[in-house]
């Protein structure tokens, strides 16, 4: 027999569980949210009957871990079912747009004689701060570019096919890929000299 105090605890637990269900996709919540709440209440009732309030508290760790695991899977399933998952071409463009600045940053870093000198001869003067600032700035730029590109592909424009915006980003991506390649060709000899200092 469940006491009134335990009933109140179950009601409170159900309210909390209802709020936590928000981590699931909206479509999944609309379809199964009520049933999941009902099952949670059943579990709470069983826990209270067997172990009282301790059973109710002991229920939460398993519930929370399971919610995180299953919510993640439901989000992945929802994205795939809606067809919003990016095509291989879109992934390549996103990686190119965000990865090229990283590659450019790597090239510029290698071209920084003070930085390379420090790598080759640790006892020499440390790399100039401007080199590190440049690397951080390019990492931030790459991250922002990747996020922006991904959000654009997630939007309706990308689903409807190639648009002017996509072509613009594609051009930037190619530019970021070609520019570092040109730098390598031009600055290659200097790079070799730096490495030969060792």
């Amino acid at each position, binding site marked *: 027999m469940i006491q009134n105090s335990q009933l109140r605890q179950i009601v409170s637990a159900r309210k909390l569980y209802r709020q936590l269900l928000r981590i699931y996709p909206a479509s999944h919540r609309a379809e199964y949210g009520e049933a999941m709440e009902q*099952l*949670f209440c059943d579990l709470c009732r069983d826990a209270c009957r067997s172990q009282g309030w301790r059973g109710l508290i002991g229920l939460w760790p398993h519930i929370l871990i399971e*919610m995180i695991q299953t919510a993640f899977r439901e989000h992945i399933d929802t994205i795939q079912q809606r067809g919003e998952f990016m095509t291989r071409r879109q992934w390549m463009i996103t990686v190119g747009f965000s990865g090229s600045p990283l590659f450019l940053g790597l090239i510029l870093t290698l071209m920084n004689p003070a930085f390379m000198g420090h790598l080759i001869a640790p006892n020499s003067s440390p790399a100039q701060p401007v080199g590190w600032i440049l690397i951080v700035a390019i990492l931030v730029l790459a991250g922002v570019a990747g996020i922006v590109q991904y959000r654009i592909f997630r939007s309706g424009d990308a689903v409807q096919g190639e648009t002017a915006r996509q072509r613009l980003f594609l051009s930037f991506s190619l530019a970021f890929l070609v520019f570092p390649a040109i730098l390598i060709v031009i600055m290659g000899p200097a790079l070799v000299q730096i490495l030969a200092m060792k």
Partner: protein
Amino acid sequence: MPDIDELLPLTPAVFHILLVLADQERHGYSIMQEVQTLTGGQVKMGPGTLYGTIKRMLQMQLIEETEDRPDPDLDDQRRRYYRLSALGHRVLRAEAQRLESLVDVARKREILGGGSVAL
């Protein structure tokens, strides 16, 4: 109609749900309780696992949802009932036969006791 072999092997959650629905239609709490009883408490499904699996099984047409109604043994809330579909029956039988073959191999290699299992 999907090829049954493409659906095998089943995940433990899917297999257990099909198993408990083999004899009668049940609602979510009944499914969870029966799975726990059948497995001696080793398999415990929470709401997320159970209804996520039910959703996918409905999509694969392994189970069907029947009319909502209260459970006379519980409270008066209307509960969603599920039953095996014809495909679900065939898939369950195929998976049970697959597991039976594996158990037979384990017995022949003396990993499990007892004689061979007739297929």
